[in-house]
């Protein structure tokens, strides 16, 4: 994307000021909710609003007409007015220096012959006026670098490096809800609505050039211009990881897609082949997609596929060994002799002495960080999956809440367990940084008790604490596939 094009998108994502057109005093209306969300999320630029009666909304004085807007103070127009008002509105906006417009208004391409004509007119008008048009019939735009939450729905996600673009607004919400749940943040997010002038691939091209975005995450449904989609995916995936969920993959889904976005679905195996060919990560479900993107954003790419599973409890290790072995592209590493000998010195002989490394309760105060460091540091190991974090802290929680705390020596042991799980989580992060290898921590405690010091420390380090080992294996597999794709084609950065 050229510098000029990037600048156009920055007017949308990092505007100097925002105008909500059609701000409403009724808390049920888009014109109220969007203004509320902009104010509530701490947007630092100037906020303007129009209202037919000039009534203040949420303490913001409103203009009866956009004519009153001072020139050159706002870049983004967030449109909640009915279709009939929009042509004049956009002309005035352009005259005031506005260069980006997000339209929530309905009644366009999704609304019959007349709506389609109005949409075509809208596209042409914005092109004439030099306005980047997003929507209409869209949900909104989010940009954490500017603390901007210009959308008609919640949530506002934590700051991060994932850019989200979606053909369906619900998916923007889904991905951002996962972001809130896991703490792995979002840089920019946009729902394309009818995608009259700006579609998912335009956003992906921007993300590839955006200094705040490292990973693209997209929901695609129908494909109207296959060659452009293929070209965009190829260009963007050469520069950053791209994770795609595609709707309409089955005959039933394709029929639903046709009535939802009016777009043709395509043979699923053709789209699958395209993704493999250009190095796009295709995910089957929303959570798989988010977790893949979150892993790209927070873990280094493995340079090989040899995985070691390290666990404090046997059963998990066995099942995870199954998952790694079953994965078509990952390999359960053979534990190197020298590594086994070194771990022998730290643990009583009942440990597993093979991969998975099951410490079997033989660990003392410093064993887990020490073994983790030895394993991840070994040249024959490419990635580590660490299981068992937070067990002791979970007991500590029960001791805290059980009615006997802090007596009977409980306080001391609780503090010890909580401190230890924090240390272990921190060690997983630190050792991943020093070894440049992915270390994925998985425990359902991330979901069951997110405040557990284990998972909450993983979150504090900026990484994802996987809710199950299987999901960690799936995410790691996506990382390895991308690395292999780049390596085979000589696309790795030096």
């Amino acid at each position, binding site marked *: 994307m050229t510098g000029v094009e990037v600048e156009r998108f920055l007017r949308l994502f990092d505007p100097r000021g925002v105008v909500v057109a059609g701000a409403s005093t009724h808390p049920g209306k888009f014109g109220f909710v969007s203004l509320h969300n902009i104010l509530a999320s701490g947007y630092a630029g100037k906020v303007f609003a129009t209202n037919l009666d000039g009534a203040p909304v949420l303490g913001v004085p409103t203009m009866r007409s956009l004519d009153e807007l001072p020139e050159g103070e706002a870049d983004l127009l967030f449109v909640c007015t009915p279709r009939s008002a929009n042509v004049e509105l956009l002309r005035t906006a352009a005259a005031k220096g506005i260069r980006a417009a997000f339209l929530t208004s309905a009644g366009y391409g999704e609304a019959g012959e007349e709506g389609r004509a109005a949409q075509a007119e809208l596209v042409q008008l914005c092109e004439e006026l030099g306005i980047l048009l997003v929507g209409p019939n869209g949900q909104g735009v989010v940009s954490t670098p500017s603390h901007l939450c210009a959308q008609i729905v919640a949530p506002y996600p934590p700051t991060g490096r994932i850019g989200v673009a979606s053909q369906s607004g619900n998916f923007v919400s889904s991905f951002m809800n996962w972001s809130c749940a896991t703490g792995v943040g979002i840089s920019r997010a946009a729902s394309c609505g009818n995608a009259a002038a700006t579609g998912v691939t335009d956003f992906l091209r921007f993300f590839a050039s955006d200094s705040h975005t490292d990973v693209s995450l997209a929901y695609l449904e129908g*494909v*109207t*211009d*296959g*060659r452009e*989609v*293929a070209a965009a995916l190829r260009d963007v995936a050469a520069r950053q990881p791209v994770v795609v969920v595609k709707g*309409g993959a089955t*005959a039933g889904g*394709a029929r639903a897609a046709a009535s939802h976005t009016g777009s*043709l*679905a*395509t*043979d*699923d*195996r*053709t*789209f*699958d*082949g*395209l993704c*493999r*060919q250009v190095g796009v990560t295709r995910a089957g479900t929303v959570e798989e997609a988010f977790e893949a993107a979150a892993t790209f954003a927070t873990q280094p790419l493995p340079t090989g596929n040899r995985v070691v599973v390290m666990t404090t409890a046997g059963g998990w290790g066995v099942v995870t060994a199954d998952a790694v072995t079953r994965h078509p592209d990952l390999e359960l590493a053979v534990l190197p002799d020298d590594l086994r000998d070194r771990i022998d010195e730290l643990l009583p002989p009942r440990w597993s002495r093979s991969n998975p490394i099951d410490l079997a309760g033989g660990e003392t105060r410093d064993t887990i960080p020490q073994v983790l460091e030895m394993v991840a540091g070994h040249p024959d190991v490419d990635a580590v999956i660490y299981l068992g974090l937070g067990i002791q802290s979970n007991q500590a929680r029960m001791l805290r809440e059980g009615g006997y705390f802090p007596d009977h020596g409980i306080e001391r042991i609780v503090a010890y367990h909580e401190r230890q799980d924090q240390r272990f989580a921190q060690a997983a992060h630190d050792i991943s940084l020093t070894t440049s290898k992915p270390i994925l921590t998985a425990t359902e405690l991330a979901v069951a008790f997110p405040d557990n010091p284990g998972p909450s420390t993983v979150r504090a380090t900026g990484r994802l604490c996987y809710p199950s080992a299987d999901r960690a294996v799936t995410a790691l597999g996506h990382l390895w596939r991308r690395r292999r794709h780049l390596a*085979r*084609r000589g696309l790795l950065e030096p």
Partner: protein
Amino acid sequence: MLRVWRLHVGLLLMSSPDLAATGTRTLSEAASKQLLARFGVPFVEERLVSNPADAVRAAQELGVPVVAKLCGDRLAHKTERGLVRLGLADDAAVLDAATELLALAHPDDGVTGVLVAPMLSGSRELIAGVATDPQFGPTVLVGLGGVLTEALADVSVRLAPLGRIDAEEMLDDLRCQALLGEVRGEPALDRTTVIDVLVGLSAAVEGVPELVSVDLNPLIVHDGRAVAVDALVELRAQGAPS
């Protein structure tokens, strides 16, 4: 989606779409092979002959057993019409087969002769081809062939053009990996023989703008090497929309 699905299954089943409706024409097997060979798709040596006596001579030169097939511009369904004779082991068998085949020709088959080719044997078959996706344009496919083709629908697709690495990964994507290794005393598939075919098909897509579809069905895995023993090229008719 449904239309493409049928095209792909059509490829799997070696049937071709409604030619009149799609504004396309097919080439004869010999012409199809000739066109694809120009772009590097490998084929075994074979002879197109116009009479039974020449068929016998061709079989003697190529070595028996041979197959004989009626060859024509508009013969997309040779097997269904019984126009393929397998395992012809001597002069008499070749003579009879060629005579019969020529007698079975319809005036509108556009018959150009009888194709005589060495009879290759192998328990495994693959299919490969080109199909045009209405949205993504020309694609190259490879899949498991033979009697289980339809039931397993094990096929891998890429957009054209593709490179050797893509072609290799297409094979990796097939679910039937065990069948590509050593099977029942037959050696493992030499994957380069399939990669050559797929890369050749991709080159044909680039070199022949009017190419709509190609069926290579089957590729017989003979002594570990995948060899295309039939070919059907479909071209956009002149003046038809692309």
